[in-house]
């Protein structure tokens, strides 16, 4: 999130609110529907990361590992209105059953209606809400306001059994914009770019005026800490509104409760789908999800081992870009240029660093900060011309082939499932790894292939067309494997999953919604898909064969009855009698016929033979 970071630095003087408003689209709050999804996503991603982190520490300490269990609850709370005066938006009002809340100049008050009326008093204004025969009216100091219905309010609750958060850290984590440690690390993680939970906190505050409630317990605490946190929007500092203790269902863990304005939609870009897809690639996680329609959707755990821990690595010269290198030079604590190359980049030894620098006419002992762009560029070029060792790739944390297959079996109840994992590769010096899976038939309903995209285990729901995954998916020639296509998409009830794991996923946009097309990446994706399709086509072929086998075996029964009919009139014997003789013939010759039909199948290219083409049988054209 370079842009946001720089913007934030420049705009310190401007309030956080203003920054947020200007960068809404970058943060994933461009509309109410996406805002609801973003808030859920931030909370869930944090929960998953926290749980996995705990598990990995437990593994290291050889303690029993507590596997992740996450509860997500999204509830529609109220109807929401804008109260409009003659010229401007005066206040906001929320209605839940007969409870009314008015938000006015950052303050709020809640009242229950009595005798069709509720009166609110703020410093300078008196609001009267009345509901007479289902017609809602609001007056301010006697003047009637226009009511405009706006997005409803939702309460989002996300609870995990992660390590919990120290009470003293809660305010900073939730109440300060751009606070976080993941930001610059070269390590595979969900929240790669540091748009964190605090943006959701701020959004909540701006739309409903409510603080965020955090309940967290660490192992050593007897009771959980409960805090209501909000952001002081002028100082960008956390404000703790309330703090007390409460019970918590796990020994350790965190629960976040946000109240926001949003819009709940089902379908491919909704929360339900996001949760479902998240569960699909997190086989060790249990997710209990309750959606705004009060439907409970539970996702089981299919693996009892956590995914491999992702480790940090340094940039490799092969993919080093000038901008990044300049930043490294500027921020490095190393004293000499030579030691920057040796210690801040991977696979560069001291000897290589010194000889490279001498080669481009630079003093290895030069101060890193003194290197200008031209010099930096020549260093990169020189390093890239060397045959360096490839970057280490053990830093990645893939989903795992078996786990992915298990999860897909459970989710789609398919007839066939297959996952593949490519070997890690490198694009621009960044290690990455592609995993892909396909599920076919069974309870999958779609008649065209569905593609589910993932980057670092996060489902990508938007901007499908500009994504390298989609583009690679469409570039595979499925017809070569006997699968029919319609506008490049395979026909049939199948679901493809493609996951890219990388220390740094190259997104096409600030919204982290699509992977950029680097040749190394698209090539790997395509190879993974081809491997899947090749294997699947063997299965489909077999399936078609058995269908064709049944079809062909049955023709003897069918033609048998015609033979009885015609023979009866030719030789004057009762048709039924002939039919029963034919039946015993078929029974007697059963094995031989099956053998014969099998042979006919092995000599034809079954995939290209449509099942309906059996009328061709027998027209082999002996003439």
């Amino acid at each position, binding site marked *: 999130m370079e842009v946001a970071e720089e913007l934030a630095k420049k705009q310190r003087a401007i309030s956080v609110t203003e920054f947020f408003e200007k960068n809404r689209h970058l943060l994933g709050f461009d509309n109410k529907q996406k805002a609801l999804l973003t808030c859920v996503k931030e909370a869930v991603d944090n929960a998953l990361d926290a749980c996995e982190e705990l598990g990995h520490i437990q593994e290291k300490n050889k303690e029993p590992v507590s596997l992740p269990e996450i509860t997500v609850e999204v509830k529609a709370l109220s109807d929401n209105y804008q109260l409009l005066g003659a010229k401007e938006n005066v206040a906001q009002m929320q209605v839940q059953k007969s409870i009314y809340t008015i938000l006015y100049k950052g303050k709020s008050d809640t009242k229950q209606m009595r005798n069709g009326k509720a009166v609110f008093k703020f410093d300078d204004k008196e609001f009267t809400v009345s509901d007479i025969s289902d017609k809602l009216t609001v007056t301010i100091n006697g003047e009637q306001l226009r009511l405009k219905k706006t997005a409803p309010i939702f309460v989002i609750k996300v609870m995990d059994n992660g390590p919990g958060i120290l009470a003293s850290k809660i305010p900073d984590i939730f109440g300060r914009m751009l606070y976080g440690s993941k930001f610059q690390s070269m390590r595979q993680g969900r929240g790669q770019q540091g748009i964190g939970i605090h943006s959701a906190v701020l959004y909540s505050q701006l739309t409903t005026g409510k603080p965020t409630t955090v309940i967290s317990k660490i192992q050593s605490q007897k009771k959980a800490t409960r805090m209501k946190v909000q952001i002081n929007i002028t100082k960008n500092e956390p404000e703790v509104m309330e703090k007390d203790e409460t019970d918590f269902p796990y020994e350790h863990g965190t629960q976040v409760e946000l109240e926001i304005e949003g819009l709940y939609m089902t379908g491919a870009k909704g929360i339900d789908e996001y949760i479902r897809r998240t569960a699909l690639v997190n086989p060790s996680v249990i997710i209990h999800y309750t959606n705004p329609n009060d439907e409970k959707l539970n996702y089981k755990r299919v693996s009892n081992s956590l995914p491999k821990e992702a480790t940090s690595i340094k940039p490799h010269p092969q993919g080093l870009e000038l901008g990044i290198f300049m930043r490294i030079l500027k921020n490095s604590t190393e004293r000499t240029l030579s030691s920057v190359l040796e210690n801040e980049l991977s696979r560069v030894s001291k000897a290589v660093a010194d000889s490279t620098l001498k080669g481009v006419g630079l003093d290895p002992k030069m101060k890193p900060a003194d290197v200008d762009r031209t010099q930096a560029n020549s260093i990169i070029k020189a390093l890239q011309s060397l045959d360096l060792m490839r970057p280490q790739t053990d830093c990645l944390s893939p989903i795992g082939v078996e786990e992915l297959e298990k999860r897909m079996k459970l989710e789609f109840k398919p007839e066939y499932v297959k996952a593949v994992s490519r070997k890690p590769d490198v694009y621009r010096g960044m290690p990455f790894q592609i995993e892909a899976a396909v599920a076919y038939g069974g309870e999958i309903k779609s008649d065209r292939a569905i593609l589910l995209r993932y980057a670092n285990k996060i489902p990508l729901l938007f901007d499908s067309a500009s994504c390298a995954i989609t583009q690679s998916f469409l570039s595979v020639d499925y017809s070569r494997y006997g699968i029919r296509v319609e506008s490049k998409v395979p026909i049939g009830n199948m679901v493809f999953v493609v996951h890219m794991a990388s220390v740094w996923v190259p997104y096409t946009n600030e919204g982290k919604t699509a992977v950029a097309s680097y040749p190394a990446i698209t090539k790997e994706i395509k190879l993974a898909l081809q491997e899947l399709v090749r294997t699947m086509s063997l299965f489909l072929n077999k399936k078609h064969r058995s269908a064709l086998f049944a079809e062909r075996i049955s023709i003897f029964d*069918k033609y048998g009855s015609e033979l009885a009919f*015609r023979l009866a009139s030719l030789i004057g014997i009762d048709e039924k009698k002939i039919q029963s003789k034919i039946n015993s013939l078929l029974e007697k*010759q059963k094995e031989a016929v099956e053998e*014969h039909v099998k042979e006919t199948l092995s000599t034809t290219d079954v995939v290209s033979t449509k099942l309906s083409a059996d*009328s061709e049988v027998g*027209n082999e054209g002996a003439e």
Partner: protein
Amino acid sequence: MADTTNMNRKKRAEILVNMGNGIYKQIEKGENPSLTLPVRGLSNVKYSKESGMITMGSNTANRYFLNVGHVRKFIQTVSVASISKTLIDSDKHTSLRDVFYQMRRTIPGTNIDVVDEQTETDKAIEDLEVITDLTREQLHITANQAGQVAGEVTIEDRGDTIDWSKMGSGGWAIPSTTEDIEFKKVNAKFVIYMEKQAIWQRLNEDKAWKKLNCIIIASQGQATRGIRRLLQRLYHEQHLPVYVLTDGDIWGVYIYSAIKFGSIALAHVSEKLALPEAKFMGLTMDDIEKYGLKRHLIKFKDVDIARLKQIKNYEWFKNSKQWMAELEKMEKLGAKVELNAFTAKGLSFLTEHYLPEKLKEKNFLD
């Protein structure tokens, strides 16, 4: 007379029933029911130098019921036998098209149609002919009428006396079976068979049959069995030479070939249909030069060239130096010329110049 026909009918029906009983016995024994029939196709026809005809070889093949590739044809053959048996029993005749409709049905309780196209029943009928050694006519199946004749000939057909010179612009329509017509009076010196209706119309309007004292016969493309039998009878019984008038192209050559040597598909009935004495009076490559038709050439298409190469390989053409030379010329030219091209020289050029000159010079290919 009526008695022998009846006897014949009984015998013919018996042949069909025997075939059916053979299948039934195989079923009873639990054997895979099969029919044995001569292989039909180029691989099993021979050109006999002695008779000058294409005859069927001795290769046979079995057609099995319990075989994915055979079952449909097997059923079709049995079905034709059954239909034919009913026809013979009731002494009725039916056309090829009617047989198709009688056989065409969806097998009850299935989605299978026994036949989809008439070509299937036509083939099944030919198969039954070779299996039983009975001709289609003996099986009481007739072809559609196609073709007409004109000339100074009087015949009797089913009790009617017909004068081929008094049939107006349409001529006498030749029935599918010409076996039973009787020649009463024949005043003609030869017969011309032509492949094109339009040419026949031209010659008939010109009264060419009167001017040249001949019989003119046409069908559309390949001569039907009825016409071929008629040509054969006119040659053998009336001693009239038969000339075949076609376009100067490879298809015309094959029409001539079928009349003269018999056809590959009907090799089993060559003796009843082929006429080795027929001669070709169609357009030759030399005629193009002679009559200045170069402007009217039509370039060969790929199919023309492919067919030409096939025909050059037929034994019965390889035997004739004259024909091989003609085919070579045709291939070299790579183009064809139609009889209709003569229209450019005058409507009756054919009647007044081409035919008399060919006859006078005896300029035929044999």
